[in-house]
């Protein structure tokens, strides 16, 4: 099946980014396609290139980028939500792209299932 995933909370503050990632990984392991992950609300903070967690912690931003690279997942950050929170192309992590809310609608129309993670 083709999946869309929505992430509505920032990394580290809330477990939702971890849950979403582990769900995506499990779906891919079962042979499903994760077509797009859409980052909305504070979820846009998952894409900050300035993120530097302590060495012994998971790197949530890089983990998304790696998943995207290896499995061709489209990581889309909502432009309106991103600008509100200071995420722009100049501090956007590799593997992500900034685009409009239409991409979220598309994640609903073009996939078989849309699963939301948030607070």
């Amino acid at each position, binding site marked *: *099946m083709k*999946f869309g995933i929505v992430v*509505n909370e920032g990394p580290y503050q809330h*477990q*939702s980014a971890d*849950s979403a990632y*582990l*769900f995506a*990984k*499990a*779906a891919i*392991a*079962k042979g*499903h396609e994760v077509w797009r992950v859409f980052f909305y609300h504070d979820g846009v903070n998952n894409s900050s290139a300035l993120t530097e967690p302590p060495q012994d912690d998971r790197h949530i931003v890089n983990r998304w980028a790696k998943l995207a690279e290896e499995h061709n997942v489209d990581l889309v950050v909502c432009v309106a939500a991103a600008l509100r929170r200071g995420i722009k192309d100049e501090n956007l992590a590799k593997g992500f792209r900034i685009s409009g809310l239409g991409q979220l609608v598309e994640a609903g129309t073009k996939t*078989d*299932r*849309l*699963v*939301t*993670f*948030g*607070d």
Partner: protein
Amino acid sequence: MLHIVNKSPLENSSLESCLMVAGSGDVLLIEDAVYAATTGNIFEPKLRAALGKVKVYVLQPDLDARGMGDRLVAGVTSVDYSGFVDLTTTNNTCQSWL
């Protein structure tokens, strides 16, 4: 449909609302909602009552992380992330009760 809940029922009414609205179908407890699947708390009778109406699942890694793996209410089915994915495919839609 699949209802996904992620809040503890002891401090938030998401699960209670979900159980009121979900006529039948599957309810999956993840993150802090896993406490609802454990014995000994004041929500347990409400969860047991719901078991007759909906099928309740709990995400085992979240339960284990919170040290509650040995307190699962009988009748609740535990799943891993792979089982979570299966629940989203066997149901036509899913809603997260954020």
